[in-house]
């Protein structure tokens, strides 16, 4: 009798578990949570890893959690469609490198920082915003809001709003300004220069 119940429970457990693992790609909140944990882990080993080491680890973590191709398209706005396929590929590549380099540079050491989940908010067109706080000892908390969009294979970060300053809007202003003033080649040159500066420090 007990055996039967046990085996039924076991079966039920297995079914539930597998169904969870199939149906449940990570939730938007989990994607942010995982990314923040990976970021903190890299910060903790920041010095031993060096820039290259941090870059390699974050390369995986950032690409997994951010929709970099989409962000790269959004930051150049309407001018995306005026770029050739080759230019689009170049932009996507250097933009991704820049984003990861910026993370590797700005999160290089650990001084007791921690992230706290605050709330989750649904926006129009199936988007979700995850509100979090970055706590830095002896400093004022920084609000980090992650705007998430669902892709085929799960939720991705599409924008980060730090204390009300939207990374996407900021970059978009900059990139469209440089593109219309100086052209594509100058934009790529400037991005490359930034990447090299990050790596050199």
């Amino acid at each position, binding site marked *: 009798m007990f055996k039967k119940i046990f085996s039924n429970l076991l079966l039920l457990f297995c079914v539930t578990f597998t169904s969870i693992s199939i149906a449940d790609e990570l939730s938007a909140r989990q994607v942010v949570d995982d990314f923040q944990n990976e970021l903190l882990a890299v910060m903790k080993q920041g010095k031993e890893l060096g820039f290259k080491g941090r870059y390699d680890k974050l390369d995986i973590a950032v690409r997994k959690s951010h929709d970099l191709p*989409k962000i790269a*398209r*959004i930051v150049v*706005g*309407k001018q*995306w*469609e005026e770029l050739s396929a080759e230019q689009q590929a170049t932009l996507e590549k250097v933009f991704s490198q820049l984003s990861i380099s*910026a993370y590797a*540079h*700005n999160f290089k050491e650990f001084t007791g920082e921690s992230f706290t989940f605050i709330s989750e*908010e649904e*926006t*129009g*067109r199936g*988007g979700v*915003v995850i509100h979090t706080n970055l706590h830095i000892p002896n400093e*004022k908390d920084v*609000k980090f*809001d992650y*705007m998430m*969009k669902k892709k085929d294979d799960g939720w991705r970060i*599409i*924008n980060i*709003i730090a*204390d*009300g*300053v*939207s990374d*996407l*809007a*900021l*970059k*978009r*202003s*900059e*990139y*469209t*300004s*440089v593109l*219309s*003033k100086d052209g594509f080649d100058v*934009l790529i040159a*400037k*991005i490359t220069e*930034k990447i090299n*500066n*990050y790596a050199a420090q």
Partner: protein
Amino acid sequence: MLIGNRFFAAKIAALVIIIFLFAGCASTEPREIVVDEHSLPETEQIQTSEVDPYEGFNRSMFRFNDHLDDYVAKPISDVYVWMTPGFVKIGVSNFFSNLKDINVVLNDHMQGKFQQGVEDVGRFFTNSTLGFFGFIDVASDLGLPKHEEDFGQTLAVWGVPQGAYLVLPVIGPTTVRGVPGGVFDVAANPTTYIGMPVQLVSMLNTRANAEGALKFIDEAAIDPYVFTREAYLQNQKHLITDGQGKANVDVLPLEDDLLNDVDTGDSKNKNTVDPTGNKSPSAQIDVANQNLDNAVTALDKANTSLEQTAGKLDKLKKKRRFKRR
């Protein structure tokens, strides 16, 4: 010793005054742009956005401020940072921050934030007594955190429109609304009425505190002028709404618009999305802008001489480089 030389000290003091006013506004513009710009009519090559109708003028001011920071403010600030022990710097920073809390209290009340106002009164008296004239921020540890309020925010809460973005010489980024805001804030800060040496330290403190942000802009910005403008305007909005609800409501539809632009692919038919989230200015702003036009004409004249100064500073820099080699 130079330090004993009064004349030298007076000169430094004069330089520091300039810096001071300027601290917090500067950032670096890539040199290659600086070189080209004298020969190009920049107002023609730059798209003006609705929030920044004076971009050409503002860019000149930005560049001037940038040079001023590079050659005057930063070097002196670096010396201050280098020669001052960490705990003294924190104490000095707390001291001036505490004096600013008087203005915070005034603006709390003018914005109708009476609860916060009472807390900030408590904060000021706690830090002024237990915190040794504000040198130690005990109030934060006692659960009375620092609030950021100023008269520019109060005007916004009262419904005064933002007006055009402006970069003022020495003072840095502001808006038409921010100008009277800044005048009030200076008047409500006791540091204004204290003697020169204290004001100098206050300036050094302001510049030293801005170092992190300026370094970040320098490292991250593809176009430092645009970066500073967007970050300033967005952060202002965040402060005005105290980071609550509305700021997100403002930002999110914008992101959706951005996303939609790409998703639908018919972006050419869409209206221009202003990345700052500022929609077409109202008629009120137009009036404000017209009034401002006169002022800008005068400033434009000043700008010509500033441009010359910037040119001279550039030459000076080249000479310095040459000497170093």
